[in-house]
């Protein structure tokens, strides 16, 4: 589904990603872990088309297409979803209007008719139950005045609404208490299908108790320095990131 080859990216002349290689296939859950500043969020932003970064080298293909030349909205329409680490507040744009526009733009891209109002409300009610947020939030402005937990649950709600092929969740667990974490993880697990895939970016192993990854990659200083199965997360938790830093030095 996703092939990343030797991907390098910089911001303001500073290299952040220094040759990333990663393959993600349908049905897989990949966890990317790493210390602060290792480039985790940059990787998520580059894959979803944030224009702050300059791609200096490498290719990314998604479903056979050159991902890096696509506009952010076209990536979303083709099934890529980013769960934001810091969801953006947009005063004056209601959640309902935002989601209706997004759902219909994606439907239009697929050659489908816009969804009528009653089907849309039905879909909202169905998906909102998944993340246990108050339906009143739908009439509020996007993320405005939402609590930290509500913002993260709202990301998973949007993911449920848009049914992406590839979800990239950027530190969705940060700032969540254990109950909210379970709800978020449960939402992600419920949305898992054999034909879709997820990349879960996290600093801590905690989230991976609830979302069980098929692969764990450790990102350090812009490179994937270690890849293994889910046991790697446990090992990392026990030994700490210093282990990786030293390990990297050895190579």
């Amino acid at each position, binding site marked *: 589904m996703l092939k990343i080859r030797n991907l390098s990216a910089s911001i303001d002349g500073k290299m952040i990603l220094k040759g990333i290689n990663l393959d993600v296939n349908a049905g897989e859950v990949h966890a990317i872990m790493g210390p602060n500043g290792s480039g985790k969020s940059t990787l998520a932003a580059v894959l*979803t*088309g*944030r*224009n702050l970064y300059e791609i200096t080298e490498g290719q990314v293909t998604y479903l056979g297409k050159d991902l890096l030349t696509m*506009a*952010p*909205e076209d*990536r*979303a*329409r083709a099934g890529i*979803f*980013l769960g*934001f680490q810091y*969801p*953006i507040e*947009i*005063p*004056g*744009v209601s959640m309902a*209007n*935002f989601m209706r*526009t*997004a759902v219909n*733009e*994606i439907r239009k*891209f697929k050659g489908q008719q816009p969804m009528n109002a009653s089907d849309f409300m039905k879909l909202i009610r169905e998906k909102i139950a998944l993340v246990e947020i108050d339906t009143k939030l739908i009439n509020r*402005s*996007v993320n405005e005045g939402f609590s930290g937990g509500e913002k993260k649950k709202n990301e998973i709600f*949007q993911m449920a609404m*848009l049914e992406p092929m590839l979800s990239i969740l950027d530190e969705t667990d940060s700032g969540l208490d254990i109950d909210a974490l379970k709800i978020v993880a449960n939402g992600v697990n419920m949305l898992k299908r054999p034909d879709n895939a997820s990349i879960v970016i996290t600093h801590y192993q905690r989230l991976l108790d609830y979302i069980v990854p098929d692969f764990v990659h450790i990102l350090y200083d812009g490179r994937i320095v270690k890849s293994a199965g889910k046991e790697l997360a446990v090992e990392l938790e026990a030994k700490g990131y210093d282990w990786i830093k030293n390990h990297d030095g050895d190579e």
Partner: protein
Amino acid sequence: MYIETEKISLNESLVDLFNSNRSLLLRASTDHVNALRMQAIDQFKKIGIPTKKDENYKYYDLDPVFSRKYDVHFSRKKIDFNISDLFKCDIPELDTDLLILLNGWYYENGNHDDLMKQGVVMGSLALAAVEYPQLFEQHYGRYADIKSDGLVAFNTAFALDGIFIYVPDNVMLERPVQIINIVMDKVDSMVQHRNLIVLGKNSKASIVICDHSLSANQFLTNSVTEIVASENSSLDYTRVQNEHNGAAQISSTFIHQLADSRVSTNTISLHGGFIRNNLNVMLAGKGCENNMYGLSLSDKFQHVDNSTLIDHAMPNCTSNQKFKGVMDDMASGVFYGKIFVRKDAQHTHAYQGNNNILLTDDAKINTRPHLEIYADDVKCSHGATVGQLDENAMFYLQSRGIGSKEARLMLMTAFAHEIIDQIKVDPLKDRIYDLVNKRLRGELSRCNSCAMNCN
């Protein structure tokens, strides 16, 4: 020096215009109006059209607007048009009591019998001067100070008609009153109408003004509106300005509020070549509330200039101002706002805000919020922002599959939302929301340049 000579000749030519039509002007009006007319032309001779040397007009040169050749009519000119055609051209059609101004003249459009039974007067200003002299003379020219601004003096010297509205004590109007102010002619014209709106004690009214140009000629409108809100009265006053790029509009509104009155104004500048709104509020009684909102959307070479003055003359009054602007292409805008709190106006609450979005590097805004406070127990604040569309918000919308054009539109509409939301008449709010959306989509300008070929 050259500009100076030119300026003198412009003012002289405008005085000449008065002198050569003096008998027509004087014949058309009552003694009271004419006495003010003569004072006003004397005053105009002294101060003339404001120049960039005037602090309040320093960002825009009025000379080009006034120096064009315009026809000026000193009696009603017959223009063929059909009222039903109006609504095809983006004027909100609402359940209202409708008044029409055509090139500054009241256009007879049925009567308002049910309102007349309650003692309400609505119609021609010229007629009201004759039919209700006592009421008229008590207010006409009392609030619009000819010394303060040459444009007010110019209007007072030339105005012949306009709208007069009187709502008696204790009468609450159920329906909004809609004034459709049309300029339409086969020649370039200058229009100077004058409105007077008087609200009695404990009365309530909602007034909507739609400014519209219906032919492709160049127009200059220099209007003055005086509004009196008596004790404990309540007024919502919404203005939608939608003229074409060849139209210039200067609109000076003077609001005089007595104790415990509540006035909200909302000025939506959708379209127009040059728009200047002067909004002057005198809080002349205790416990008044004034809300003043404005939204301007401009592109190409359009210019929207909002100048406000809130005079807190009495204690325990609240004023709240918020103006927002979106400037695209080469458009420019000005916000010049002043809150004046006099020595006796203790316990004043006053707020003033101005937020702008510039969509291009060439768009421009000059913003000058200004407080002048002489009382010591007050709460006043002001603030201004100028920025671009929020990049993070843009990316958030795009990351959900929303195209960049649609995302920009959503963010601009959201920016405008705060102002439109203040409109209290729901059907009007919905219509204005539609119009703003259309405007931001660029669909309104087509209608504006159509010269009535809108069907």
